[in-house]
């Protein structure tokens, strides 16, 4: 049977870095049964071949605080959730902050579970002159204590050996060790921790005066009311602009690979419905979404670097003042930031907000934050608006994020002054040390997100691509008289003017494609509902694309590709995915994406509630379908109204 190990520790002790070091990509996000708080579980295989399931619990300051994350950890250790008590705990301490961390370790050891303590960032502490005496620490705490560096891997193998032995033999902490009975923060606990620290720290650290002054100045700048916000805006703009610059090269590669696969399949299959399904429905449809994989991976990579650098905690304070004006607590910052990845974990993370009104307001505005599913749509529409101008496209991308955040904050302000009236709790936050971010950890997170995106593309998006191909390919319409006339004229001209004949044939093919599209099930549906979306400049093709995106936003690009019958450009040659979408036409021959339409669609996608799973989770979290219904109606109406205004202003 696989041994289960709970990973515990204060926030900012490098727990996640250690988890990624131990489990790498062999981890998955899961929920505890009976709870919607997510956690990562990873499989770790030791040098001796022993398999350990590592449960990465949230960072906490005490197991007895009246906070959701503390309750979750206590419940996990006591076996009230998951599959009974874990076989062991791995307690991670920060070597640079041992007195406080030791107090937490004592309270965790009192639970009586077999335990091992990892003193992380020992290499950084050593550079400050602090050397951990492992033997003295083991004697003082009654469990194996190993000094490690999760970042470099130093000591991790020894840690695993001790962890396996302790869990296998169910070695509980030595009963003769006198641990403080009071909770972290009490005088007795602080005195015990100070005495223990004196015993296990071989050399006391020298003064940090110079380092602290630099930290003070950085903190002053990053949390300054004006400068802090400017830094944050600049940081985000640079981040998104660099995503555009850097992602274009791998995007071309992905596009090329899919084009090559499509060409191989087209060559191997006889012309007909099957070839069309595989080349345009499956390969083309999936390519239209997967092409944005490099941007998603880069976004998460850069965000992970920022978080690891210690900057994001300062940014939380920079935006806290603004958020409080809108009636949201500082604790809402992290759930809202998480919602930029996906609203689902963001909404689940609101469980960490203690006040119910604050929590509900955060849940209701979280879907306004621009999630990763919107990234392909933003990327497509901003590139339509600013073709060949990456800086302008990057700024437009940033503006989308800002618009979503402002809409969310504005909505929160209204909610907190009306139906959710009440005081806002203050934010108290630990600011981690500034440090060089770990490339390895950022890569692990980015690759993990990339796999999740690909998994989605391989299941939901593939299914929708196939359905959309069928809906837009059937029923077949008979050849229109105009098409027949064009073909007859081409046949007449073939012997005298070959080039003109070829052009006529090409026109006939395009006209027939448009007629087939128009007569298909999707075309009929689009025509029926077109009047609803015509005020924001959409034709029947874009109407269908917007309707399907209510299932999942990122499907929009796939649907546009499949619906527009893309794959050939104006000259009739095979084109890249973006070029094909850019050259797509409406039934009247006008470009599918005009600047007003692209801008209106962009605003619509920023503001609209188009995610079925999010609505389900909101219902679950709020215990009622009333809130998700309100959220859906409000966000969709706001998106429709704003898109209509933008379209009218630009035309």
């Amino acid at each position, binding site marked *: 049977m696989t041994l289960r190990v709970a990973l515990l520790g204060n926030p900012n002790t490098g727990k996640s870095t250690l988890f990624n070091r131990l489990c790498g990509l062999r981890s998955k996000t899961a929920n505890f049964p009976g709870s919607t708080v997510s956690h990562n579980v990873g499989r770790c295989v030791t040098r001796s071949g022993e398999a350990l399931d590592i449960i990465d619990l949230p960072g906490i*300051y*005490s197991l007895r*605080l*009246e*906070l959701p994350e503390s309750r979750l950890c206590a419940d996990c250790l006591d076996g009230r959730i998951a599959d009974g008590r874990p076989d062991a705990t791995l307690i991670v301490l920060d070597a*640079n*902050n041992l*007195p*406080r961390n030791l*107090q*937490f370790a004592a309270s965790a050891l009192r639970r009586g579970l077999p335990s091992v303590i990892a003193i992380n960032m020992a290499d950084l502490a050593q550079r400050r002159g602090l050397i951990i005496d492992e033997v003295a620490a083991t004697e003082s705490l009654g469990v194996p204590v190993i000094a490690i560096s999760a970042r470099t891997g130093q000591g991790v193998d020894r840690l695993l050996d001790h962890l396996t032995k302790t869990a296998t033999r169910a070695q509980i902490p030595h009963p003769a060790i006198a641990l403080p009975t009071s*909770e*972290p*923060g*009490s*005088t007795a606990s*602080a005195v015990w921790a100070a005495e223990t620290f004196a015993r296990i720290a071989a050399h006391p650290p020298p003064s*940090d005066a110079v380092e*602290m002054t630099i*930290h*003070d100045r950085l*903190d*002053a700048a990053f*949390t300054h*009311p004006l400068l802090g916000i400017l830094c944050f805006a600049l940081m985000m703009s640079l981040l998104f602009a660099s995503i555009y610059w850097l992602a274009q090269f791998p995007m071309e590669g992905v596009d090329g690979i899919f084009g090559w696969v499509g060409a191989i399949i087209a060559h191997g299959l006889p012309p007909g419905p099957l070839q069309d399904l595989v080349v345009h429905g499956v390969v083309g449809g999936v390519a239209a979404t997967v092409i944005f994989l490099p941007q998603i991976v880069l976004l998460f990579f850069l965000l992970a670097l920022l978080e690891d650098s210690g900057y994001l*905690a300062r940014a939380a*304070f920079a935006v*806290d*003042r603004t958020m409080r004006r809108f009636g949201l607590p*500082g604790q809402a910052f992290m759930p809202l930031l998480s919602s930029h990845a996906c609203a689902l974990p963001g909404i689940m993370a609101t469980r960490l907000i*203690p006040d119910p009104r604050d929590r509900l307001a955060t849940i209701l505005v979280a879907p306004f934050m621009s999630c990763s599913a919107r990234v392909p749509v933003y990327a497509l529409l901003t590139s339509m608006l600013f073709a060949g101008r990456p800086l302008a496209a990057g700024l437009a991308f940033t503006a989308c994020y800002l618009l979503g955040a402002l809409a969310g904050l504005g909505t929160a302000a209204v909610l907190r002054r009306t139906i959710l009236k009440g005081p806002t709790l*203050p*934010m*108290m*936050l*630990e*600011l*981690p*040390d500034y440090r060089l971010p770990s490339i390895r950890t950022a890569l692990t997170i980015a690759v993990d997100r990339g796999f999740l995106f690909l998994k989605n593309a391989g299941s939901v998006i593939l299914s929708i691509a196939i359905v959309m191909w069928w809906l837009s390919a059937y029923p077949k319409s008979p050849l229109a008289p105009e098409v027949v006339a064009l073909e007859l004229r081409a046949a007449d001209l073939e012997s005298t003017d070959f080039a003109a004949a070829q052009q006529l044939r090409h026109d006939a093919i395009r006209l027939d494609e448009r007629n087939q599209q128009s007569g298909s099930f999707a075309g009929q549906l689009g025509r029926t509902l077109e009047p609803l979306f015509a005020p924001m400049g959409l034709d029947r093709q874009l109407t269908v694309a917007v309707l399907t995106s209510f299932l999942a936003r990122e499907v929009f690009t796939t649907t546009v590709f499949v619906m527009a019958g893309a794959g050939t450009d104006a000259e009739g040659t095979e084109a890249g995915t973006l070029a094909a979408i850019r050259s797509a036409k409406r039934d009247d021959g006008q470009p599918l994406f005009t600047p007003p339409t692209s801008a209106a669609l962009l605003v619509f996608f920023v503001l609209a509630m188009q995610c079925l799973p999010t609505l389900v989770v909101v219902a679950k979290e709020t215990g009622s379908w009333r809130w998700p219904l309100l959220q859906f109606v409000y966000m969709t109406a706001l998106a429709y109204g704003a898109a209509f205004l933008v379209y009218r202003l630009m035309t």
Partner: protein
Amino acid sequence: MASKGIQIPLSQLVRGQRATVECSALDALPADHRCLLAAMGMGEKCEVRVCRAGTPCIVQIDRTRLGLPRDVAERILVTLLESPRP
């Protein structure tokens, strides 16, 4: 600027000043704030150094840096230990 030895709100200290948190002063805070602050390291008689005054008020306790909103810092009474370094 605050004088040495007098109990004053933490929010009145300037950058670089050091002070001791008064145990009874924390009682002015709601219980959940008090417990969380203590677990974060701001317990009875702990020594703090002000890294940034204002909002947020950033204080250092041992190697821990805590950011506090002004309204919380106003309710924590401290005894000044020394004047800021030049």
